[in-house]
């Protein structure tokens, strides 16, 4: 029945388009979008745009994960530091990150660096907050037990802290990656000179709605792939840890 409902929506969309009820400049027919998708996929631009977007995301995520894990680890190990910094970071997180984008445009210009900065900021908060939470809930009893049995610092980290913190940290990393992707895409849509978001806006402005939808389909596919990939990685990571 669910399939039936989705199919019904598609049929309504197609008949609406072919009967002229839907303005093709706003919502082109699914068949037109499918045809445009074929053209777009055969052209080289979509791969270049996708590559640029993913490269921006990779750098943004690297910055966010590097700083978030390091800072989160440093804060999370001390209960006092958690009480000082956790509310501060959570408070900053409540401010919509997108507000920083005009600043990044001023600092870094309209090229990829401003998108990387926006993506990194967006991804940083869930990563640092979950890293703090992860290392803050490491069992004190386990730590004391391992210490009394003569574990050194690297051993404590590898065998006690890391396994305890891992499930929460990995959830934060995943959230950071997904939010970072949305932020990079958002930055490209707002002001940019390349990437998937840029192509979508270009198609919208040059009145090529079918191609615009084709690019949107690519963006959705990329987002879903990222989601599936990271939840698979999270699941595997967890199973590995508990085994």
């Amino acid at each position, binding site marked *: *029945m*669910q399939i*039936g*409902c*989705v199919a019904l*929506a598609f049929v309504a969309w197609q008949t609406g388009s072919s009967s002229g009820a839907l303005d093709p*400049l*706003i919502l082109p027919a699914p068949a037109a979008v499918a045809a445009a998708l074929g053209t777009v996929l055969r052209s080289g631009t979509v791969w270049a745009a996708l590559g640029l977007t993913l490269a921006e995301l990779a750098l943004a995520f690297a910055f966010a994960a590097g700083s978030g894990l390091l800072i989160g680890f440093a804060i999370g190990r001390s209960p*006092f530091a958690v*009480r*000082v*910094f956790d*509310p*501060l970071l959570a*408070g900053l997180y*409540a*401010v*919509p990150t*997108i*507000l*920083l*984008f*005009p*600043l990044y*445009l*001023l*600092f870094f210009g309209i090229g990829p660096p401003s998108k990387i900065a926006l993506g990194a900021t967006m991804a940083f908060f869930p990563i640092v907050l979950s890293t703090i939470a992860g290392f803050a809930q490491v069992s004190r009893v386990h730590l004391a037990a391992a210490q009394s049995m003569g574990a050194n610092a690297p051993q404590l980290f590898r065998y006690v802290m890391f396994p305890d913190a891992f499930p929460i940290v990995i959830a934060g990393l995943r959230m950071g990656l997904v939010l970072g*992707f*949305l932020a990079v*895409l*958002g930055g490209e*849509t*707002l002001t940019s000179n390349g990437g*998937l*978001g840029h192509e*979508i*806006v270009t198609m*919208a*402005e040059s009145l090529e*709605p079918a191609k*615009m939808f084709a*690019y*949107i389909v690519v*963006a*959705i596919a990329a*987002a*879903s792939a990222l*989601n599936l990939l990271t939840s698979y990685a999270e699941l595997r990571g967890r199973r590995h840890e508990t085994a």
Partner: protein
Amino acid sequence: MRGNAGAVRIGVIVLLVLLWELLARRFGNPLLVAPPSTTLVTTIALLGDPQVTQALLAALRELAIAFVIAVVAGLVIALPLGLSTFWRGALLPLVLGLYAVPQVTVLPLFVRIFGLGPPTKIAFGVTHGIFAVILTVIAAARAVDPHLLRAATSLGATRRQMIVAVVLPSLVPSLFTGMRLAMSGVLLGVLLAELYVSTTGIGFFTQAFTNAFAPAKLFGLILLLAAIAIALNELTRMAERRFSRWRENPAS
């Protein structure tokens, strides 16, 4: 110890602001960064500029309208889906499918349909906020305490009475949670649309200040918007705390 941590936190904030002041004055390029003291003075001056306050008020109005629409429409959509297995099975996959779309990508489409004015910003705010309401209310409607339902049935309640007396009241706390999440969504949607449209409103000023290399004005405008966002978020958070208190101690 608790007050101690709060004091240290304030110390950290003061230190960061001082550091910003010092670094901006010493090394900062005045075309790109402004120290906090200058930013503060400029922010107050901005509030005296009728064009800027008008843009801020317009944004605030868009936020309010979008929030109300998102909550009301969200409820209207969520109730049948929450109450009937048939409608949930039929329409929930569609809702989830739409929810998975990265919405920024369709922003140009919104501008095409709704133009450059407030309708685009309101509509984009609604689509960013509405899913939080729909999904929390559906989840809550499915999680109504079965004991209460059983009790109501055995006391002879009709389906209508059951919905009015049992289901709807038990949705209230989740609705407020949904409203808090909707507010952060609405903020994101409206601000995205405001920044995207650079011919009027907030987007016009952020672009003008950037092009004029006037960092103090840009910092000031962003601070004002951040203050609005924090205030609205805090408001919904307080409402949530107020209206879900009874849930935490069901014994009373």
